[in-house]
């Protein structure tokens, strides 16, 4: 995961949103995942079109917080989701096509 990664939700992962949190079902792995409010927001944004750096810029400006701190948090969340096998789009430029 790098700051130029543009994470995308994997197509085989089904999402159920409840009260701002999300339950994911990874069909391929037959595994369930519970996301908290913050991670759910990011999960919904991760469409493969926006890099983590771009996202950090937007969030830092919107919230008036330190951009580097935001970026570090974004990378950490992305690494966690990637470790669970839930993401695509981590090794190509934004807007890349599906293989």
């Amino acid at each position, binding site marked *: 995961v790098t700051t130029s990664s543009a994470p995308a939700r994997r197509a085989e992962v089904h999402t*159920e949103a409840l*009260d701002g949190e999300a*339950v994911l079902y990874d069909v391929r792995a*037959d595994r*369930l995942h*519970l996301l908290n409010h913050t991670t759910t927001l990011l999960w919904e944004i991760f469409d493969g079109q926006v890099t983590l750096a771009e996202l950090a810029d937007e969030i830092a400006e919107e919230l008036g917080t330190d951009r580097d701190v935001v970026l570090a948090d974004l990378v950490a969340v992305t690494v966690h989701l990637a470790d669970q096998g839930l993401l695509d789009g981590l090794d190509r430029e934004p807007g890349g096509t599906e293989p």
Partner: protein
Amino acid sequence: VSAVWRLRALRFVAEIEVADPALDGYLRRLFRDLRTDDAGAIDVEWQVEAAEADGSAGWAFVTRGHDRYEFTDSGHVALEMLQTLNARCVATWPGVVCHAGCVSLDDRAVMLPAHPNAGKTTLTTGLVRAGFRYVTDEGVAFEDGTTRIRPYPKPLALDAGSWSLFPEFEPAADLPGDDYKRTQWHIPASDIRADAVSGACDARWIVFPTYEAGAATELVPMRRAAALVELAKNTFDFPRHGVSALEQLATVVRACDCYRLTVGNLADAVASIEDLVARG
């Protein structure tokens, strides 16, 4: 009295023939809340025959054309029938079935999903004794895409650790010996109260009980997303239904208030759920 009788569990229908009149009478009474006079197609024929098991006179539970299980005592015949019934009715239900106890009041259901030995049958029995109606102590079956629950009122199966809580429900049968109540107590809900068996009802509360000896009984609200994960873990054969199961369970969870219940003693746990339901 016909030599054969039928029971229906969800969509599963079995036709049963028991050679011994005393055992036949016991089993007919045990399964009376599932008995049906429906003359339609059946899924299976079960026979209970006299047999020799382990060198002693006993019984054989036979699924015609398939399996034959031999036992020396009547209790294990009933237990085998119950376990086979649980498996078959879940496997033949087209929708999602959760591993849970369940009671209802005024058409609104309290689900009690839990792993084995969490105390769900004990709590279910206590709630029925307190006036709730019995839906199941094993499998909560949903009609597809809705919160509607189809009852599966199998005999309550109480383990020995709970017998002292319900001395008035100790089974009695006109059978030699006490084999029929030595392993588990099997109790038709209509033995507790004539009108105890629930009709179809809608899920309104989901309460995850855990028995902890000596703990304070406590009912704690639970986030719906966390409840959905727990409910999925307590769903029979979840991977078979996959995404559609998660969608079904999410529909149910969205319509319910969800809680964790630590059960220190039965009376307090029953009172907690009575209070919950009274608050609407």
